[in-house]
């Protein structure tokens, strides 16, 4: 028996090299994208920038790029929170509604004479609480995230409209709440505090997802919740934490929105729910969970903004921008499907 076994071992190791799949260019590309899912959107972003620059050199002017970044700041920061939720194989349709609600609370309290930092903190905690509610419904009552957040989308939107009573709040000279809209000149670039805050969120969460146990557990839970649980990950806690931390991010996004529009408007974030998902998906994060990188979502948000801005500069009908983004989303999901297919 023993000798038979060792003979088999030798025989099969000899055939091993023959049977090993050949290293075709397609397979190598597959391996590369598998390791770095944000690579393909980065290539798209670079190509788009080059094309728009060739078509209209005004595109690369620091002034234009600064505006572009400022326009991307709100959706870009929402996308950080959305990425966390999508990595757990969930989805949050209520991100924009949470942000607008928090934004209105901040604005209304601030306009009513409350000190800015206090108004901010109340709005911030409301945002965390709203996301916590989503997380509770998903982890405790085991409802599908899509349904939960579809419901809370309506609830939070209604609450915003009721609370605002159709008013738009303007904050003039409110230094703390509108501080995120202040421009900081860096070289020839005029960046707002909001843009820097967004970039800080990306740096922070890229670190948290890559370098901490929490990040690994988030990926493992999104990848295969049952396997993660059996391996000893407390998956329910990880899931809930993803929603709650995302809520904190939406609170920051609300602050950035207040600064951007110098006030609060119940209709300001109407499309933000879907735009954040668009940014995440274009950024190469898998809707099936456990795969992707937060930096991809920044690239995704920038791609949408670059198309918007670039096509406008060329003088193309803005509707084509919407069309182009739709095509990109489908291509991105198709690419993800290919990347996830692994032949062993």
């Amino acid at each position, binding site marked *: *028996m023993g000798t038979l*076994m060792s003979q*088999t*071992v030798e025989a*099969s190791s000899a055939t091993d090299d023959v049977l090993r799949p050949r290293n075709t260019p397609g397979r190598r590309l597959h*391996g590369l994208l*598998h*390791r770095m899912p944000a690579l393909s959107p980065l290539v798209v972003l670079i190509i788009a920038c080059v094309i728009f620059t060739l078509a209209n050199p005004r595109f690369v002017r620091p002034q234009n790029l600064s505006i572009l970044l400022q326009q991307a700041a709100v959706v870009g920061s929402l996308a950080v929170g959305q990425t966390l939720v999508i990595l757990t194989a969930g989805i949050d349709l209520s991100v924009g509604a949470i942000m607008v609600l928090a934004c209105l609370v901040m604005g209304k309290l601030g306009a009513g004479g409350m000190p800015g930092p206090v108004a901010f903190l109340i709005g911030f905690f409301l945002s965390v609480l709203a996301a916590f509610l989503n997380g509770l419904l998903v982890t405790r009552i085991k409802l599908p995230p899509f349904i939960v957040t579809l419901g809370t989308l309506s609830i939070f939107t209604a609450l915003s409209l009721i609370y605002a009573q159709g008013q738009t709040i303007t904050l003039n000279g409110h230094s703390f709440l509108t501080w995120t809209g202040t421009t900081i000149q860096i070289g020839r670039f005029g960046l707002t505090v909001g843009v820097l805050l967004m970039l800080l969120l990306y740096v922070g969460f890229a*670190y948290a997802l890559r*370098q*901490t*146990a*929490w990040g*690994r*557990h988030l*990926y*493992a839970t999104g*990848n*295969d919740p*049952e*396997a*993660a*649980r*059996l*391996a*000893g*990950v*407390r998956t329910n806690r990880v899931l809930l934490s993803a929603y709650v931390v995302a809520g904190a991010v939406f609170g920051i996004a609300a602050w950035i929105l207040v600064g951007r529009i110098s006030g609060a408007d119940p209709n300001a974030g109407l499309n933000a729910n879907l735009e954040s998902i668009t940014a995440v998906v274009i950024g190469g994060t898998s809707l099936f969970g*456990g*795969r992707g990188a937060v930096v991809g979502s920044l690239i995704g948000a920038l791609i949408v903004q670059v198309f918007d801005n670039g096509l406008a500069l060329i003088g193309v009908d803005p509707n084509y921008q919407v069309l182009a983004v739709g095509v990109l989303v489908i291509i991105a999901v198709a690419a993800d499907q290919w990347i996830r297919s*692994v032949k*062993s």
Partner: protein
Amino acid sequence: MSTPVLQARGLVKMFGHVVGLDGVDLTLHSGEVLAVIGDNGAGKSTLIKCLSGAMIPDAGSILVDGSPVSFRSTQDARAAGIETVYQTLAVAPALDIASNLFLAREQRRPGILGSVFRMLDTGGMKKQASERIDELGITTLQNINQAVETLSGGQRQAVAVARAAAFGSKVVILDEPTAALGVRETGQVLTLVRDLRERGLGVILVSHNMPNVFEVADRVHIQRLGRCVGVVTPQSHTAAEAVAIMTGAARLADTEPGDGARQADPTADSGRSR
């Protein structure tokens, strides 16, 4: 005889009206391989899950080194030195081998980087992972940075076994470890099982594969319809006899008339009724 490293007494687990386990006793000593065999639905996986903390039994007790424990999660069982390789392997496909080995027991960097910034000691864990894998003599895993989903079935199995073997200090439970493997990989897993026994660990091996079971097991625990219907040894019974008991074609008493003394462990034999 020394205190068993792992002991279960009268384990009961119900799934609604369906009986998963019906008062099962099990005894495992250090340095032995106990095989658990049984037909589909005999309660093998349920038994394993109760012992590894993945399920909480409705009644009965579990003792580790003679003292009672109550596992509320797999973490509790791990803390008690019991590691399990599940049939589904419980590996995260998109994570690399080293991350999977240290999943849910990540190590942080020393100093302020680890304590305040919660930074993982990725390099250290990778180093340890490849050391452990070398130590265990697993040759199929070459690149520790490879995502588990890019591995073959046998290699994934090796990752799961390596994880259990590297951290199990008392007991390693393997649920169908060779079911998806070829001849060569099966041989490697069985060698690993023998190594674990040599190191003085208790090993529980759940398997459908009778030749494998009778090749490595010291004792064979036979499950049938949620109960233990006998514990035999490869010396006292043939594989065919064990299968006959397992399927209900024969009873333990029939297969060895008048020779009950040759039973492997008189304290933990046939299933008791509640």
